[in-house]
């Protein structure tokens, strides 16, 4: 076999072509030269796959952190846009908010009303406004939040649930007003409307309506906002809802299958949208299992998109992964222990080859994180990146008997669950029948019972407990935020051009009917942008989408 035909030979050629003469050989403390990747034979005695090669078990890039470190995206958001802006400025000053290629990056989380698509003056949301996230309901809120930022050099991640479609409308309208061309806008919409595993609840659209809307947004973005990532499949959320790792990977892939099937049904070529889909994966519970599940996820994703959907673009086969440490494993008891938990979780993510990172704050079980805690999360990432040497070698566990065997086993079990879901009529049918929810709740309950019985240890909770006084600083949100947000939206409704706004909302309704009935695709998103430009609010747009696409219960 000629060298250039081998995996290693092809890898060498790619590296030489892509990174020119740059060397990625590092030296450790003792002066030993460390190669960027190690390889050899796999467990079957064949030449092992290299990073950056199909099916991407070992990572999606031939050279990873040695060339491009992960993006640190601390979650940020509370109160009014002006209050969150202050926290953003602090993070930036501390060396955080670093995106790829010198961009600034922000990972915005919204309060629950916003996340679900409700305005602050909706009668059912009092008490939650600006608590646990930013309150945003109109395009002009982004003028405060991102005042003076060059949006063509700022990556914005919008983390929210059922309010996702309308929120993207607000962001794009704000960018348009400030004169930024859509083809320069980089960012991410989690668009958790795919998530019927526990995170969007009753405020989500009907399952079929949700998947139709996902296709609409993806096709609009592919055409008009090509650098935008319109969908994050969150393995993390599924784990947090209680599923085990195999279930969570399988359900994540099942969600991708459901989205792709919807696209194919509507005549959208998967290769035109899939490269912009991404994953959000959870770390912090079982170190080696999490490394293996990440490798298995990348492999299964590549195989499914290529073999089942005929994708050809390499971007359609490469699972980009944003890592987050596990929020549900943070304990109220002995909260400083959470710093250690988060560090191990983050290390597992790095050794898995994750592309972005959110490390939770150690005090999140107590309430919203304090500034000190947020800074320590960032320091954790910086210590892994710049002190530990963990970044010198890509896929350092590749070839480990244990990790390779576990990767194969997770892959096998994931395909079993996917086959089971297929037999049950596909993911949407499984959501509608309640089967999915039952599977997740049963897994969550089993986990909790293991804690109760002591079979599973949680340090400080069911073992090594102490009676400690509660003396930790807890962040207190501004009680005035709700009043100010409501005054602001009332003023907004008074001052806007009411006729223009109603006309834009009427056009949104018409487009929603067309898309819902399958006559066109992409025009819901187009009309969300137009309505937001005409000063429609998040809740007003959401009400129309709920009307046409149905509600989850």
């Amino acid at each position: 076999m000629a060298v250039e035909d081998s995996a290693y030979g092809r890898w060498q050629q790619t590296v030489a072509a892509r990174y020119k003469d740059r060397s990625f050989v590092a030296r450790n403390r003792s002066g030993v030269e460390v190669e960027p990747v190690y390889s050899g034979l796999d467990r079957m005695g064949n030449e092992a796959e290299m990073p950056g090669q199909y099916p991407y078990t070992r990572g999606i890039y031939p050279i990873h952190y040695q060339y491009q470190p992960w993006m640190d995206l601390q979650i940020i958001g509370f109160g009014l846009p002006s209050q969150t802006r202050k926290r953003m400025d602090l993070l930036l000053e501390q060396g955080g908010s670093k995106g790829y290629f010198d961009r600034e990056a922000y990972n915005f989380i919204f309060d629950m009303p916003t996340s679900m698509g409700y305005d602050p003056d909706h009668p059912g949301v009092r008490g939650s406004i600006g608590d646990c996230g930013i309150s945003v309901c109109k395009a002009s809120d982004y003028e405060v939040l991102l005042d003076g930022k060059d949006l063509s050099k700022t990556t914005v991640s919008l983390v929210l649930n059922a309010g996702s479609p309308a929120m993207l409308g607000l962001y794009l309208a704000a960018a348009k007003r400030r004169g930024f061309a859509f083809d320069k806008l980089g960012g991410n919409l989690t668009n958790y409307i795919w998530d019927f595993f526990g995170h969007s609840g009753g405020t989500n659209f009907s399952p079929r309506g949700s998947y139709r809307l996902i296709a609409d947004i993806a096709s609009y973005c592919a055409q008009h906002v090509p650098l935008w990532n319109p969908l994050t499949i969150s393995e993390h959320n599924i784990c947090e809802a209680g599923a085990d790792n195999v279930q969570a990977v399988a359900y994540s892939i099942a969600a991708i299958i459901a989205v792709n099937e919807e696209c194919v049904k509507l005549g959208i070529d998967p290769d035109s949208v899939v490269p912009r889909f991404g994953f959000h994966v959870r770390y912090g519970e079982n170190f080696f299992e999490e490394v293996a599940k990440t490798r298995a996820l990348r492999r299964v994703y590549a195989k499914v998109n290529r073999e089942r959907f005929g994708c050809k673009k390499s971007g359609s086969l490469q699972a980009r992964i944003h890592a987050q440490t596990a929020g549900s494993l943070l304990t109220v008891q002995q909260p400083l222990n959470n710093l250690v938990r988060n560090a191990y979780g983050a290390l597992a993510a790095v050794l898995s080859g994750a592309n972005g990172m959110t490390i939770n704050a150690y005090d999140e079980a107590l309430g919203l994180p304090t500034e000190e805690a947020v800074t320590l999360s960032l320091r954790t990432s910086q210590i892994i990146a710049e002190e530990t040497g963990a970044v010198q070698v890509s896929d350092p566990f590749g070839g480990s008997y244990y990790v390779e065997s576990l990767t194969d086993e997770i892959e096998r079990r994931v395909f079993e669950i996917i086959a089971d879901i297929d037999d049950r009529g596909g993911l949407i049918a499984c959501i509608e029948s309640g089967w999915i929810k039952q599977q997740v709740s049963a897994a969550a309950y089993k986990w909790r019972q293991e804690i109760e019985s002591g079979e599973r240890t949680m340090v400080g909770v069911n073992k090594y407990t102490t009676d400690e006084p509660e003396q930790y600083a807890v962040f207190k949100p501004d009680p005035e935020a709700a009043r100010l947000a409501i005054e602001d939206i009332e003023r907004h409704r008074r001052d806007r051009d009411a006729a223009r706004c109603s006309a834009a909302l009427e056009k949104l309704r018409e487009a929603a009917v067309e898309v819902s009935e399958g006559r066109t695709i992409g025009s819901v998103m187009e009309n969300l942008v137009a309505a937001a430009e005409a000063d429609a609010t998040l809740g007003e747009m959401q009400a129309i989408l709920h009307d046409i696409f149905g509600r989850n219960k």
Partner: protein
Amino acid sequence: MQDNAPNPRVLLTKSFIDSHDRAIATIALALRDAAMEVVLIDYEQPEDVVTVALQEDVDIIGLSFMSGGQVETTQKIVAELKRRGVDDLPLVVGGVIRPFDVPPLEEAGVREIFRGGAPLADVVATFQRLAKAYRGYA
């Protein structure tokens, strides 16, 4: 000693906008396994909680808060219980309850507060005790 008390009926509920339902779903299963009858709903308005509690004739209400609304919502529910003459119906709260939430929750008459990591056995025992006392069996 023979226990003639009927199995408690419980209303567990959280806001329709709070998507974090792992805790409340787990508590529901634990109470069910302890032979309680559990009604599990999302509410849109705090007042809805009292309407359902009366319709379902429950012996205790459990509220879950994972992301905001702890104090204001609880106060509204307590006010509605009073307005409808059932202010002795026991109310317990669980989830992310911050130190500064505790005094106003206690002042509102919340009977017990459970935070993350509270043993299920304690939660079950508390629901049982409060529900039975409400029915006059303790």
